[in-house]
């Protein structure tokens, strides 16, 4: 194992312990770890955005403008981008409206047909499938259909939720509660998984590197 890897392992293990120390109580070491994380994340993010986005899409085409005059077209999105930054200058903030209008209009034009044909209609079709072919499938489809109907009624606020509408809405709430329960159960599992991953690192990679069993 290289010296760099060993230093990296100790650094990562030390920072893990520092961050976990918050579980006991807030302390200066935790604050240090938190600020270090924010600083490193910001620096990393900036480098990634610069080298993957700003440099190849804006700066490089401008540098090569003499080789290919079409590269001058890149000035249009650059200027529109600068208009957005001008929101911080109150007297020039209105210029950002042009950029947002273009962005929102363009994206809405792309999104509406794609989302309707690619998500909304297929989801609707799968909700109202013909019943069958066997009893378990029929039960599943009926439960699904009842759930969709009752939940939609619950979110229909033009009628007061009394009488039949209120009762259907109550069934809708039950379905929503089951969905929240499933979602919360999955969330607990996810958070435990992250803890497992960190302790796996501490046991197998860090302590394992000291005992010769690291990997």
């Amino acid at each position, binding site marked *: 194992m290289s010296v760099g890897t060993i230093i990296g392992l100790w650094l990562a293990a030390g920072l893990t312990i520092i961050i976990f120390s918050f579980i006991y109580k807030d302390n200066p070491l935790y604050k240090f770890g938190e600020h270090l994380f924010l600083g490193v994340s910001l620096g*990393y993010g900036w480098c990634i955005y610069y080298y993957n*986005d700003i440099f190849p899409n804006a700066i490089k085409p401008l540098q090569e403008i003499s080789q290919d005059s079409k590269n001058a077209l890149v000035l249009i999105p650059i200027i529109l981008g600068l208009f957005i930054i001008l929101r911080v200058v109150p007297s020039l903030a209105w210029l950002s409206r042009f950029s947002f209008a273009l962005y929102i209009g363009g994206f809405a034009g*792309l999104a509406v047909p794609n989302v309707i044909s690619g998500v909304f209609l297929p*989801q609707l079709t799968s909700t109202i499938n013909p019943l069958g072919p066997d009893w378990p499938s029929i039960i599943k489809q009926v439960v699904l259909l009842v759930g969709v109907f009752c939940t939609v009624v619950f979110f229909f606020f033009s009628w007061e939720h009394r009488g039949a509408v209120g009762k259907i809405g109550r069934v809708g709430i039950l379905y929503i509660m089951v969905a929240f329960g499933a979602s919360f159960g999955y969330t607990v*599992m996810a958070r*435990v*998984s*992250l*803890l497992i991953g960190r302790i796996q690192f501490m046991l197998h990679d860090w302590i394992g590197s000291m005992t010769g069993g690291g990997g």
Partner: protein
Amino acid sequence: MAEQQTPLQKMAYAILNLDRRIIFTLVFLCVTAPLIWPIGMDFTPTKEVIDAFDDIEALESGSVVLISADYGPSSMPETHPMYLALLHQCFRRGLRPVILTLVPSGPGLANRGLLDVLESENPDGSLMYPGLTEGVDYAFLGYKPGGTAVMLGLGQSFITTFPNDYDGDATSKMPLFREVSRLGDCKYIFDIASVGYPEFWVPYAAERENVPLSVCCTAVSAAQYYPYYQAGQFKGLVGGMKGSAEYEQLVGMEEILGKIPPATNGMDAQSVVHILIVLAIIVANFFFFVSRRWEASEGGRA
């Protein structure tokens, strides 16, 4: 009330006012102990995971699979084992993965994982997948910001959307992209995501280009993605560390690695912590309701 407490009442109030650090310690012990002394709890792959695995197995050798590794270190224990298992499956089946990432924290992990798989060795020390050439048998395109814009761009052309790969080599010079020029030429899309991109891969890529899509997501997102699986828009759904462990089992990662793979290794700890949480919920709720009855009866007497 306090001077007349029975031992049961004392225990009940002690549990209801338990210092949260004791719970943290119990969770820590329940995670650590099974990782040091594995129990080997059995689990069976679910239909959602088997569907994804079977789809990849059914692809013809040489088919191109687009893998979008949209996750970062914060969800590594849940998603990275799946990425490694999928790459092993692809290379073992002679499939050609084209990997990209739409999250800025993704490229380092995705590249490391790819190198780990490419450098995998057989027990005799020989390379597990010898003779693989970048740009021919696989490609790693790196990170591109834009999300949906990238997906739509891939529908037009790989080369114009990613002029260079992660190492800076021109994709226009790669034989792989002369043969497979756009997303529609891929045989499968696999999105391994810790963010909301699977919902965007459906309308902007899979449905638009008519390419089947499977998804591996964090457990937090799994519940919201079931409607897509039920509608057939996700051919398979691998949810969280449990899903990754199931996929590891299907691919046979234990035989490949010669040790218990990471997600499978975490399943014992996951189960033990779940038992602890369920017990804590039952015990705390029992004493909560009992204590309310005690307080109500004492209030009535007063």
